[in-house]
């Protein structure tokens, strides 16, 4: 239900925290967006924007998680495959 698009904060203005606005860059177009809900945001960071409001600051470390997870899965798959390959097949086991 919620179109939330990532954009880069290029400037911030306003003294009253609830009226603070930021200029956010979305692939080259700039729109004025309320940053009242991300008081900690700094210029250069990315935010998720919905209906004219930034609702979160994108955590750059966590942003890689999707790919780290894949890598781990890949490593585990490799481990499982190599475990199978080195296991002694039952039929040839000498008792």
């Amino acid at each position, binding site marked *: 239900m919620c179109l939330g698009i990532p954009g880069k904060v290029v400037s911030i203005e306003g003294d009253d925290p609830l009226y603070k606005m930021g200029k956010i860059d979305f692939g080259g177009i700039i729109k004025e967006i309320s940053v009242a809900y991300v008081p900690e945001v700094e210029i250069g960071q*990315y935010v998720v924007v919905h209906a004219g*409001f930034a*609702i979160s600051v994108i955590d750059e470390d966590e942003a890689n998680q999707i790919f780290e997870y894949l890598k781990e899965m890949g490593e585990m798959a490799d481990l499982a495959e190599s475990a199978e390959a080195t296991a002694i097949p039952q039929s040839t086991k000498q008792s």
Partner: protein
Amino acid sequence: MKYLDEYRNPDAAQRYVQAIRKTITRPWSIMEICGGQTHTIVKYGIDQLLPDKLRLIHGPGCPVCVTSTAVIDKAVEIAARPEVIFCSFGDMLRVPGSEHDLFSTKASGGDVRVVYSPLDAVKLARENPQKEIVFFAIGFETTAPANAMAAHHAKHEGLKNFSLLVSHVMAPPAMDAILSAPQCQVQGFLAAGHVCTVMGTTEYDPLAEQHKTPIVITGFEPLDMLQGIYMCIKQLEEGRFEVENQYVRSVRREGNPAAIKILQDVFRVVDRTWRGLGEIPASGLGLRDEYADYDAENRFGSAADLDSQESPECISGQILQGFKTPHECSAFGVKCTPERPLGAPMVSAEGACSAYYRYRRLSSDSS
């Protein structure tokens, strides 16, 4: 575009698809609650890449689809008044009420304007003191902080000509109602990443526990969806029922405290009628008494007083809970099309029926 393109990487997508195929051993039904997620699934054809054993049910997470007919009728009535500038998100303009929608109201001379943000409506109120500006405040918890800020600014500035027609809904009560239904077919849930960006994840622990259903909070890009589906399938296969967060780059356990604060200052929990599903107690948000002056229903009369009627042929309630697919509706594609919707799920781009109509004719022909 950064933080978008990476999550549309086809190789990574294929790898997640392979992982899902390797993990799944029996049929499962997963519901994605959010319309934005439905949109991604059909736009990228994700469901075509997934194994047949996996059934995706498109849930009622689309404010367009679940805003009650009475509220639409009220919106239409207010918008028709000559002294009113009626502002709305674009999504709502084509939703059919009992007889009219906001578009035809515009055709008849109503001043109906699409805005991108509720703050645009407040701006109009400042600039047009001789007019009544009414903003259609719909949406889930994601949009509530934005709408709350509009109300807050209006009150702070003492604007006399601004009000909100509120029809907010909340995700967890809807998920609870769906999981509690006797014929419930949902075995796993993909929760809405942007709702949780605002509200955090704690509300979902009791749901997962009580219904023994895994809940994975998922983002909206193809890789987010695929990873979320994988995590959900893994839980199902392993017999777990936990709340997991896939959308870690945006969702924190505590959500967004600044947004929650203003949301709670302006709104309180109310009972809400969901179109197609009926009334779900404590499932909506309404304006607090301190904001009574900004409530359009106080100025223009209550939506409940209107004599609203749903199309008798629309089975949206059954579709939104996954009991039927749009293909099983006798009106689907015949009497009910995107040009001529009988009910809400055919209107919104991510309503289940519209999604099926636009993108799914491929698989219906082959099934």
